């Protein structure tokens, strides 16, 4: 059996994500990824958009593999990819790895974050991570009817201003708001809608470390890859992300940003993050990354 460590196997197969992105990208078929927490109606939305029959059970974590379908909107076809439901884009489970790697490496043309309006705060956590990864992103505020029944009214306009990306309220089960959602997707894809994501600003020393790591990550990845988020993952000691940039050796990564990283970890009386030395032995696993 394959050994199991956080964020392991899917990333070592890195090139497949890029391949998948390319394969899905039929000419004139923009790729739209649906990301979201489990049980936010993501699969229902996917079915409504694509007309495919995909089983949508009411339990978390059901979609393990990527479902893919075609949506037609105003005479144009879009490839819709239903990512596994995850609470974050750190790669601490297979689902998270799959979702994170798809967004970071396969680079969909547009990403839609499906958020459950009944528990917005937890869903925002993922949305904030996704806007770290890409500019071409919209938030689909789903289940607004249920939220209203439960007594919470979400101000979509204010949310839009806070995140800096378009927010569309929907009720996927009844097909409400889906036209406007696809209009937004089309606009993001063609560039008629531009976003100014308001990204999270981390603690100053963390930002300093990121500034050191990100150029190194950029050097090792194909143009357009989500370098900032991969740098965040690498800084957090995520083995998958380290393997991904492993081509240049983790040693270089530590040397290049040594000061900053040391400050971050030692500021709390800790040594370097425990997974870093291990990464040294797994250099250049991601050799074919730039192909």
């Amino acid at each position, binding site marked *: 059996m394959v050994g199991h460590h956080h964020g392991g196997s899917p990333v070592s197969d890195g090139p497949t994500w890029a391949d998948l992105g390319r394969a899905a990208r039929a000419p004139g078929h923009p790729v739209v990824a649906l990301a979201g927490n489990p049980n936010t109606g993501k699969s229902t939305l996917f079915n409504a958009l694509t007309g495919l029959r995909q089983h949508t059970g009411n339990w978390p974590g059901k979609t393990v593999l990527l479902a893919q379908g075609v949506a037609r909107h105003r005479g144009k076809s879009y490839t819709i990819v239903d990512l596994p439901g995850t609470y974050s884009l*750190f790669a601490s489970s297979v689902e998270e790895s799959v979702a994170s790697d798809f967004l970071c490496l396969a680079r969909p043309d547009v990403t839609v974050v499906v958020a459950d309006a009944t528990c*917005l705060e937890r869903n925002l956590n993922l949305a904030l991570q996704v806007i770290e990864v890409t500019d071409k992103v919209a938030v689909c505020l789903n289940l607004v009817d249920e939220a209203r029944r439960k007594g919470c009214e979400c101000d979509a306009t204010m949310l839009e201003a806070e995140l800096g990306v378009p927010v569309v309220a929907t009720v996927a089960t009844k097909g409400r708001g889906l036209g406007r959602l696809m209009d937004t997707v089309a606009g993001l894809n063609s560039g008629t809608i531009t976003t100014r994501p308001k990204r999270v600003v981390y603690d100053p020393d963390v930002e300093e470390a990121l500034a050191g790591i990100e150029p190194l990550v950029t050097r090792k990845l194909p143009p357009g890859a989500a370098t900032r988020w991969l740098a965040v993952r690498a800084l957090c000691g995520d083995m998958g992300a380290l393997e991904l940039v492993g081509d240049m050796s983790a040693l270089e990564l530590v040397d290049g940003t040594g000061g900053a990283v040391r400050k971050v970890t030692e500021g709390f009386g800790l040594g370097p993050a425990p997974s870093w030395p291990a990464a040294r032995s797994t250099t250049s696993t991601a050799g074919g990354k730039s192909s």
Partner: protein
Amino acid sequence: MNPPQSPVTVADRVVASLYRRAESIAAKVIAPRSPAQDLTPVIDRLLTSRLTGFPIMLLTLGAVLWVTVVGANYPSQVLGRLLFDLQGWLSGAMTAAGAPAWLHGVLVSGVYRTLAWVVSVMLPPMAIFFPCFTLLEDLGYLPRVAFNLDAAFKWAGACGKQSLTMSMGFGCNAAGVIACRIIDSPRERLIAILTNNFVICNGRFPTLIALSTVFVSQVVQTTIGAGAAAALVVVGIVLTGIVMTFGVSWLLSRTLLRGVPSFYTLELPPFRWPQVGRVLIRSVIDRTVFVLLRAVAVAAPAGALVWVLGNTVIEGHSVIAHLAGWLGPLGRLMGLDGFVLVAFILGLPANEIVLPILVMSYLGSGMMVEMDSLESLGILLAAHGWSWATALSYMLFSLLHWPCATTLLTVWKETRSSRWTFAAAAIPTAVAVIVCTFVAGLVRLTGNA
């Protein structure tokens, strides 16, 4: 993610920054209104409390099975009568066309009769059970079940998500094995794969329902009472399977697959009223028709094969009778007979056809009945020496024995290991032989049956 002795890591601080931001945005964006009464916490307390959680689970299971048993009875009879009337007509047509006896035998007595049996006995319970199950699934009840059973899985050294893969197994064990992908730890995934077979799949449900109906109705006379009693028997069998799952998981995690259970998060989703119409259509088309077509596709050639085996005579006995003779001692040890074991072996492609094969081989050995109802099934089985104890042994063997060929193939695809695929067949078979032998011994000791 981080060792417990490190109170704050970079990862923690990054996550903290994200959460603070999410919290501040949510605080600005959400305008609380006077909340409508939300019943979810109240219902959840009932469904997951120590006191009421398990009784409600058992009652739900019992109710679904009772509805299935009672509801399936009448349509089963109507379908059976219709299909066997058609058999007479087919027979007549073939004789009129001057078809040779062997062709008539293979096509009508072999293929058609097996098909008719599969359709009339399997279709009604599936058409009732699947929608009920899908409704529970869409309502959001299954994660509550997983929550209730979590402690038991922890005890067995397995992953709590295994209850979700078991739920899938109720539909089809092959689907259940595929669903094991949701379990991250390879060790726990293997445990879930190897034990999925102990959940009764829909290929075996109709058989259990038919047998318990037949043998319970000999004891309980009223229709409603018999239905309830038969449902209770099936609940008992299902629970035995679940107990076996825990037992074997426990054993595996202390022998072949040693380890400590890993943690996981499971969200209890809000209850959502299922879209009943869509559920009905989906479960009828996706599950019922799919499973039925699969059964029919396997049953047709199997019916032909069994007819040939039952009518090829070597040294005065049919091939099936010879096989049954060899397996007889082992069968009787387990409270069964040789014919039953032959049927289970020939039924490897799909569990749905085990009982039809058995009926065919019993019929082939001289007894001719119109097999158009459950009563005639009871008469046929009794004529071959069946008592309630035989039925019990049969049901236990059906519950515990090796998985069908489709499931084994799926296990191989998921594990890519012939060793684990072999284990997936060998472990349940060993359990089945041990349990049935034990139960049959008990029955013999107490002088019942």
